[in-house]
């Protein structure tokens, strides 16, 4: 579970993704949804970065924007040192060989009219890798790697269970040997016992191929198990980013503290005081200054006026909070 290489695999600099809100027949813009509101971070080769947050925090949008499935509104994305933010279609396609995705809903992420084998082989077909025979062999190899029986390659998705469908999705993502996989809630739709199987599989694959994962989830226990480093997102911004052990032992941002306190604990039956009140505000109308200040029990004067910056407090522990600057 240790990170291997040290060079920058992925670097995101002040990335923003805003969606315009339009009204009327001529689509007049009246506002914008700030799904991703200035996010910066680094990922090394072979590292698992966990991205956690509640609904509306922008973690899924961030994943898709990095993949250029959504066009960034501003900011930069660098992959292996080169700027991919405004890459043209041809080179973008080549990039897709290196960065892949695993999605949440095993039912929806597979085309129900394609066999498992066809779905897994699709990346090979799209990028023109190998002929029929080589592709068949590769599909069989991949299926075995993810724990599926290669003889079921010509079965359709509805003939598989949820966990198996997710394995097909993972096999598809591995087909052309990516270096980075963006996993968007890959186990949230699965039963607990199946979840454990898929998490183990993802760990095994990560170790065997030295993959990096951007692991997006809302379940802190899963993140705790999987990630090397963790980033906490709130309303489009990263509020805290640190090594896993550090963030769980010494959370510094009040939101991180509240989030950790809110997770029902399995071992300790301590009665915790609920630290957060109110609901998550909408990204359409984020509060001024620090987005978290209306719900923060430690908010003071500058919080409603200035947005805090993400600052490195101790060795690779970043926090975005006025309490520490």
């Amino acid at each position, binding site marked *: 579970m240790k990170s291997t290489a040290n060079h920058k695999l992925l670097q995101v600099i002040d990335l923003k993704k805003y969606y315009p809100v339009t009204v009327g027949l001529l689509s007049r813009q009246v506002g914008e949804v700030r799904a991703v509101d200035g996010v910066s971070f680094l990922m090394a080769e072979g590292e698992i970065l966990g991205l956690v947050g509640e609904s509306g925090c922008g973690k899924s949008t961030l994943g898709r924007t990095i993949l250029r499935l959504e066009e960034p509104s501003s900011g930069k994305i660098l992959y292996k040192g080169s700027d991919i933010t405004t890459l043209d279609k041809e080179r973008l396609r080549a990039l897709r060989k290196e960065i892949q*995705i695993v999605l949440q809903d095993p039912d929806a992420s*597979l085309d129900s009219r394609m066999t498992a084998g066809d779905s897994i082989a699709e990346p090979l077909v799209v990028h023109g890798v190998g002929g029929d025979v080589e592709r*068949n062999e590769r*599909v069989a190899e991949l299926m075995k790697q993810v724990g599926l029986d*290669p003889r079921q390659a*010509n079965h359709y998705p*509805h003939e598989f269970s949820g966990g198996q469908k997710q394995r097909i999705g993972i096999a598809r993502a591995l087909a052309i040997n990516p270096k980075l996989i963006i996993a968007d809630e890959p186990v949230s739709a699965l039963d607990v016992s199946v979840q454990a199987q898929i998490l183990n599989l993802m760990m095994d694959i990560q170790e065997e191929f030295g993959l990096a994962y951007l692991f997006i989830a809302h379940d802190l226990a899963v993140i705790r198990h999987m990630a090397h480093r963790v980033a906490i997102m709130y309303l489009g911004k990263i509020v805290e980013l640190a090594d896993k052990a550090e963030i769980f032992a010494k959370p510094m941002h009040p939101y991180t503290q509240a989030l950790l306190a809110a997770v029902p604990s399995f071992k300790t039956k301590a009665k915790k005081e609920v630290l957060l009140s109110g609901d998550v505000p909408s990204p359409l109308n984020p509060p001024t200054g620090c987005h978290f200040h209306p719900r923060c029990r430690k908010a003071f004067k500058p919080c409603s006026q200035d947005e805090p910056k993400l600052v490195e407090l101790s060795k690779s522990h970043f926090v975005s909070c006025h309490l520490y600057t």
Partner: protein
Amino acid sequence: MKYRTAGTSTSIRAGGRLAGYYWQRTRRNKLAIAGLAFIIFLIFLALFGPFFTMDPTEVNFDEKNLPPIGFSIEKSIYDINTDEFTTTIIRGTWKHPLGTDNKGRDLLAMIVSGARISLLVGLIATGMAIILGTIIGVLSAYSGGWVDNALMRFTDIMMTFPFFLLLVLIVFIFGHSLIFIVLAIGLTGWTGTARLIRSESLSLRTREFVTAARAIGASDRRVIFRHLIPNVMSLIIVITTLSIPGVIMAEAALSFIGLGDPTWTSWGIILSAGQHTLDTAWWIAVGPGIMLFLTVLAFNFLGDGLRDAFDPKSKI
């Protein structure tokens, strides 16, 4: 171990399994099967029936207005010489199992011949409408922007187009012809399909498997042809099955009011002839009427069954 697994070569064989899966689901719906059985019967009737029946255009005034087999009517003839009414009972015979019309034409033959017309018109006009509707729907959904807007406004206008008036105009200028009926229905009946296909395409675009395909690097063309169109195919099949009865009824209605083509014997034309004699020779109207009713019902049952079978959420 050699694996005959993935890749396009075995997809067709595997495709048979998918069709088989949907067939299994359709089979469980008894009404749909009944509908399918009737449609198959109708097709056989249309294809092979005319070899076994009389010539529907053969006129025979001696045998006019005969009732169907098993029925009898009274016929009163006034003899001008004796100033008396003589009443005779006329019974149906096997020569004309469904009776005859006012010109002595065998009704069974006419109905069988009408089946041909109804199915032909149904299939051709529906085919035109579906193809047009699908092209416009898919194009609209994929282009988005002003193209989408323009196409949809055009669809709105066509929806309100009085195709009936158009047909009256055409008939007035060019005379009666079956081809005009088919064209009029086909060229104006695509609007509902266009809307449905467009909305299904739009919704498919946001599904995760399309996101996954794009993430893999698939081009737009590949996404449309390999992912979207196959997924829209089931909708097209359902729409087609449910449109055919409407088209058949439209043709019947047009023929009924006299805009039809009298050189062909369609059910609508027989109905039109029979409406005036409902009290004396009811079988002329009832025959085609029942056939229309059963045909529409059969296509509707089958269409409903197919729609449920294709819908992954319905638990069959």
